[in-house]
């Protein structure tokens, strides 16, 4: 398995004493020589990237840099022109992963109850009804679900629907969870709530998460690392470690360290936009 340390990527100045993420964990997802062209433009050319195991990486960058395209290619939703994407050395088809769509309304199955939606990835793996139920209950308690899972999606609020989508993605105990702008269709209250639940689940399971975001504060808040992309042809502009300890709370947002990291990300982002 090829492993390229990302030490060569310049680290942004972070306050000394923040030692949590200093030892970079080993790579979980390795991308080598990824090339993707659309009709008129080249989005990715010979693109290399390592995504760390057991960390939340958020993907952020200028419009049209292919944030979603990147995770869609990693998750196999979009074909790649050339290159290699490996998960701990394994191909995508040999691993279990979850994917949360931006548009929960179009991603859930409205003809199934919420609990059947959540159990669906298990059902297609041939898991028995009883085991499915047990898993759904387990997820419901770790998400502290306060609504009836026997309802159908169209009877749930947007936030509840997105919660069901996330639970569905987590049901088969995936190694990697992809989330494509999971909060962008939610109101602020629900965004905060789901962000917290996601963090709790992450702290409990340590599952590798790749989150596309279009909101810098949100990207920094949930991340262990913010992956900043450039304008196309897309390269890694910088990988910024986010050091504040978890669980992060409302106070984290005003923490000087957090503010400094966010400012640093913004600076890099602006530099890339103007480039």
């Amino acid at each position, binding site marked *: 398995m090829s492993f390229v340390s990302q030490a060569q990527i310049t680290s942004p100045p972070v306050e000394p004493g923040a030692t949590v993420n200093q030892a970079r964990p080993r790579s979980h997802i390795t991308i080598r020589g990824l090339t993707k062209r659309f009709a008129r433009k080249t989005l990715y050319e010979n693109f290399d990237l390592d995504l760390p195991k057991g960390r939340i990486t958020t993907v952020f960058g200028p419009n049209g840099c292919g944030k979603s395209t990147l995770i869609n290619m990693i*998750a196999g939703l979009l074909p790649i022109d050339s290159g290699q994407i490996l998960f701990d050395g394994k191909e995508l088809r040999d691993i279990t992963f979850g994917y949360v*769509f931006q548009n929960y309304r*179009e*991603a859930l199955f409205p*003809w199934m109850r919420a609990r059947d939606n959540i159990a*669906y990835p298990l059902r*297609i793996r041939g898991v028995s009804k009883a085991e499915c139920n047990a898993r759904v209950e387990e997820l419901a308690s770790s998400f502290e679900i306060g609504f009836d899972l026997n309802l*159908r999606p169209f009877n749930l609020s947007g936030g509840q629907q997105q919660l069901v989508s996330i639970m569905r993605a987590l049901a088969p105990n995936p190694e990697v969870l992809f989330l494509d702008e999971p909060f962008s269709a939610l109101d602020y209250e629900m965004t905060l709530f789901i962000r917290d639940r996601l963090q709790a689940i992450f702290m409990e399971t340590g599952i590798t998460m790749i989150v596309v975001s279009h909101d810098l504060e949100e990207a920094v808040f949930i991340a262990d690392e913010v992956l900043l992309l450039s304008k196309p042809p897309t390269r890694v502009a910088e990988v910024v470690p986010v050091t504040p300890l978890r669980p992060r709370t409302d106070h984290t947002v005003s923490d000087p360290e957090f503010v400094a990291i966010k400012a640093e990300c913004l600076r890099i982002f602006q530099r890339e936009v103007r480039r």
Partner: protein
Amino acid sequence: MSVSPRPPSYAWKFPDKIAAAFSQLGHQVDVYTASFRIYILGPIFLYAIWWVTANAELVSPRLLPGPNETLHQLWVSTVHGDLLSDFWNTLQRTLYAFGIAAAFGIPIGVMLGASRKIYGSVEFLVDFFRSTPATAMFPLFLLLFGIGQEAQIAVAAFAALLVVLFSSAYGVINATKTRILAARVMGASRWRVFKDVMIFESLPQTFVGLRTGISLALVVIIVAEMFIGSSSGLGRRIIDAQQVYNLREMYASIIATGVMGYSLNLLFIAVERRVVRWIH
């Protein structure tokens, strides 16, 4: 004292209690009918025009019997005559034709919709025959099935089948891509995507097709009963009444046909509401 004492009133006064009760009743009728009052305006209006036209003999009474006579005829034919058996015959044929159309149309349509290539190859044929009036096929079906209700059912089934098939295919083609992608990304096989997602995604469109299909089946059955040898059915009944100039009977049978068409439509909307609840 300037104020004259009120003389004890012996004059009869409408009792307050009863007045209040009437007012209450009026209010309740008002509330109760509020939801459908507007809907019965049209029928009342039609009835009034019909009644005036018939009674003032604006149209020859030979051509237009009054509404009361017609409704009375409908009652008599239903209770004492054989209208019900004709009604049942027509309904049965329509349902047979529709059943055949649904049983073949939905699966074939969904399969066609699932594969762009196959759909592309037959799109022209489906569209062509869908656009060909089914009645133009009467002689052909008579040759194939002989005179009798088999030919009627076959031609109606053929007409409805194309509509159902096209709608189902269309529903699958326009299925929400995200849901199919979601199922695939969870590891669902092609077959599971087909049976767990595509079928359901196509349901709303399929129901549009089924509703159009059953209306079309009824139309074709009625026309077939009129013109391709039949001894029973509402179509036969209408044309028989017309032949002997029994216009009351003719209008009554037309109304009975309308009742059937409308009821079928209502039934389908009710079923549709229950099955595809997510789009309502």
